[in-house]
């Protein structure tokens, strides 16, 4: 399934995939921004404030009641990094017309797009034309809470903190929500200025998956948004590059939390991104290292040594990095760390069975084929590639995986460099806080 691309306006690209297989389609609007220390946390906060209330739907209840009426349309906020780019947006599912009850003779897509337009361009403003102070202050508190809540999940905490050390001199090392202090200092004036700056310069990437004719979808999106978009094309971004750390010294970091399980995270630089020729080989090598239950990390660190429940690796293809994560008792750390490095070494020495390579290729083939069953995954695939000017298709990737050889695996694994070793020590590994009970 390959989207048809329409450049419907200077600042509006529509990518549409037509499929009759699904009962609910999906439409999303995304904006791609650079990551900037002074602005990124403002943008994240702005996105939340815009969803709090609009001119026509001034409260969270009013907005949700409107979406309930539109057959429970789920509107989700997109706020994430793709390599060194910040992607923000809004997505909605669209129930297929043939499943709408008889009274539902409304144009669902048009109505949903209008709610999106309302959220982005008609937020609730005060008499001075500023974003409502009440919502700004409330969302500031929630954003600070979200920053602090990272410690609720030791695994996510360890991954995030390892990333912060690893990417300390790169854009994606800047926390997407900012810091408690940077959020605290935001005023309604600052946020309103950021909103105006954005709507005056933004360029939309619209993505659609569903039964409608792609050309008609493009036309409708254009009809709803064209008059709201800037007339001059926004500045095009240069291709997003992997700007790896040039320093060869391995960074080490250790922290602690009062939890019962320690977290070991190892960050590797592959220096191979989605736009590189070796991307498929690197993805297969990572699959062999730590993705499936037959991967080297699962079989050796977990099954053979029984050191942990989870030990896996994740390839960030937009950053050319691999994060290995393992939850274990602090006293097992040295053994686990040694075993993890042994497995990486084994890949680069060609010390693996042909069956491991075949299994990894088939596993990727299986998951990539299933992308077309899932609109959000399709969007992520094609938007991610567009960002890197990598005009790849799912079938192209599948052919790429199939062609990967033993030599390719050895070659890419030899390029991997350890960047950061992070350990979150568990200070409550042996005793627990007592629970209190009252009648």
């Amino acid at each position, binding site marked *: 399934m390959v989207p048809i691309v329409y450049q419907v306006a200077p600042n509006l690209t529509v990518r549409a995939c037509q499929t009759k297989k699904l*009962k*609910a389609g999906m439409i999303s609007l995304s904006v791609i921004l650079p990551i900037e220390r002074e602005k990124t946390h403002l943008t994240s906060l702005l996105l939340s404030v815009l969803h709090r209330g609009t001119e026509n739907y001034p*409260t*969270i*209840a009013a907005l*949700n*009641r409107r*979406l*309930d*009426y539109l*057959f*429970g349309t789920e509107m989700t906020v997109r706020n994430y990094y793709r390599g060194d780019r910040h992607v923000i947006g809004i997505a909605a599912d669209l*129930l297929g017309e*043939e*499943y709408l*009850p008889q009274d539902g003779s409304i144009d669902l897509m048009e109505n949903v797009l209008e709610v999106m337009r309302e959220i982005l361009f008609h937020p609730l403003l005060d008499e001075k034309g500023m974003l409502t102070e009440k919502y700004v202050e*409330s969302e500031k508190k*929630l954003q600070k*809470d979200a920053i*602090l*809540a990272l*410690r*609720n999940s*030791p695994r996510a905490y360890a991954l995030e903190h390892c990333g912060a050390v690893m990417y300390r001199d790169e854009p994606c090392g800047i926390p997407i929500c900012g810091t408690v202090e940077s959020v605290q200092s935001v005023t309604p004036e600052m946020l309103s200025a950021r909103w105006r700056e954005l709507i005056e310069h933004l360029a939309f990437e619209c993505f659609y998956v569903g039964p409608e004719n792609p050309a008609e979808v493009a036309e409708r999106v254009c009809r709803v948004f064209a008059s709201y978009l800037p007339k001059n094309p926004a500045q095009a971004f240069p291709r997003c590059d992997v700007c790896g750390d040039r320093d060869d010294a391995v960074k080490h970091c250790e922290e602690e*939390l009062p*939890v*019962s*399980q320690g977290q070991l995270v190892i960050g590797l630089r592959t220096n191979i991104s989605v736009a590189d020729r070796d991307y498929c080989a690197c993805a297969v090598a990572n699959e062999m290292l730590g993705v*499936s*239950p*037959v991967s080297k990390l699962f*079989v050796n660190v*977990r*099954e053979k040594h*029984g*050191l*942990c*429940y*989870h030990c896996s690796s994740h390839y960030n293809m937009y950053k050319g990095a691999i994060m290995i994560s393992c*939850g*274990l*008792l602090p006293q097992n750390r040295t053994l686990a760390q040694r075993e993890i490095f042994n497995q990486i070494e084994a890949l680069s020495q060609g010390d693996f069975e042909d*069956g491991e390579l*075949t*299994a990894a290729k*088939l*596993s990727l*083939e*299986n998951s990539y084929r*299933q992308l*077309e*069953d*899932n609109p959000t995954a399709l969007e992520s695939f094609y938007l991610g590639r567009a960002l890197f000017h990598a005009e790849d298709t799912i079938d192209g990737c599948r052919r790429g995986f199939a062609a990967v050889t033993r030599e390719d695996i050895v070659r890419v694994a030899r390029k991997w460099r350890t960047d950061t070793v992070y350990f979150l020590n568990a200070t409550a590994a042996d005793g*627990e*806080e007592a*629970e*209190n*009970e*009252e*009648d």
Partner: protein
Amino acid sequence: MKKTEFYSSRLREGYTRIEHESGLTVYVFPKKLTGIYALFATDFGSVHTAYRKEPNGEVITLPEGIAHFLEHKLFENEDGSDSFARFSALGADANAYTSYNRTAYLFSCTDHFEDSLAELLRFVTTPHFTDESVQREIGIISEEIRMTEDNPWDRGYQMMLEAMYCKHPVRLPICGTQESIRRIDPQLLYECHRLFYDPSHMTLVVCGDVKTEEVMKTVDAAILTRTHISAQRVGTEEPETVRKAYVDAQMQVSKPIFFMGFKDPFVPSDPNARIRRDAAMTLLDEILFSRSGEIYSELFESGVLSPTFTCGYSIGEDFAFNCVSGESDTPDAVVERVMEYVERVRQEGIADEDLERCRRVLYSDEVRAYDSTEEIANRLLSFVLDGADMLEYPNLFEQITKEELVSLLDTLFRREYLSVSVIYPLEQR
């Protein structure tokens, strides 16, 4: 071999049930998507901790977490190989999970479906355990337990169950405890497999672009031997009211996390009545606690509640409860405000407009659930294990009356059925 067809013209979906001569029940749900998803499950779950071999015989108690332990160990084969590797060689992605009332083994694939299905049926029915591998597994599951204990949401939920229930094994952690898993040995695992993995305890669900004949050909070729042993499960006498009204603990959280568990004292024995109660509670939860509703709106807009607020009803053969959870700096005040609000709705009734709106939302959610073979297969398994037809479920939202909802609200949302569990930050209580 008895075959029954189910179809919904409203959803434009249907499935077939086949009662195989081995005692196995097979469900095939054709769906023209790329991924095929298969689940092979036994009705043996974490709550099944006591049984009798004969009527009036001695009650045998199993260590907590044994169903989950067995799930981990079944992937190991006699020749030393691992079934994960066999699935991987076929390009299929295999996994398994244990819940209160079942253990399910599964795979998803896009190719080599029949070979993968044959492997699924084979490995689940041919156990092989050694002392050494059981010992190693204790280390792995021990870390899984620690991982769950470090998750404040899991921990708070578990504490809520322990506060609500006095005896019912739904209060036991699914993975067991550090102590209970050390009481598990190969002999016990073989015994559980013999008693609870007989084909008559098993259900196979397949969803995807497959034909019933293809599935049945593989089922026919599989060696499914009946043991003809029927272990009798021993139920528990659970009081109507809760064990503890309140429980709390401190963890590394940034702000308090609360759970309000309403123990449902009236679980119907008829499966259709149970499903209707489930649909009615789901509708009532949507009316009372959704983001469009009054209480969320009030508490969220005033800064008392975080957006993590959520609710859900769980029902099994002999237990049911409704859980409302979220994060707040003042959990006690939220609990009080929720109880006041429910009391007001009880007195003033439910607005027609709210009922219609929530029916519309839930019907739409139902339709959306049919876009993933994984979701369809898992839901179908839940429904069939509870003896109900999944395709009928969306119709229930329209049949359930306002009076029924008010009466449910009246029975369930009472102080004597409420257990509150709170996880406070380490520096605060």
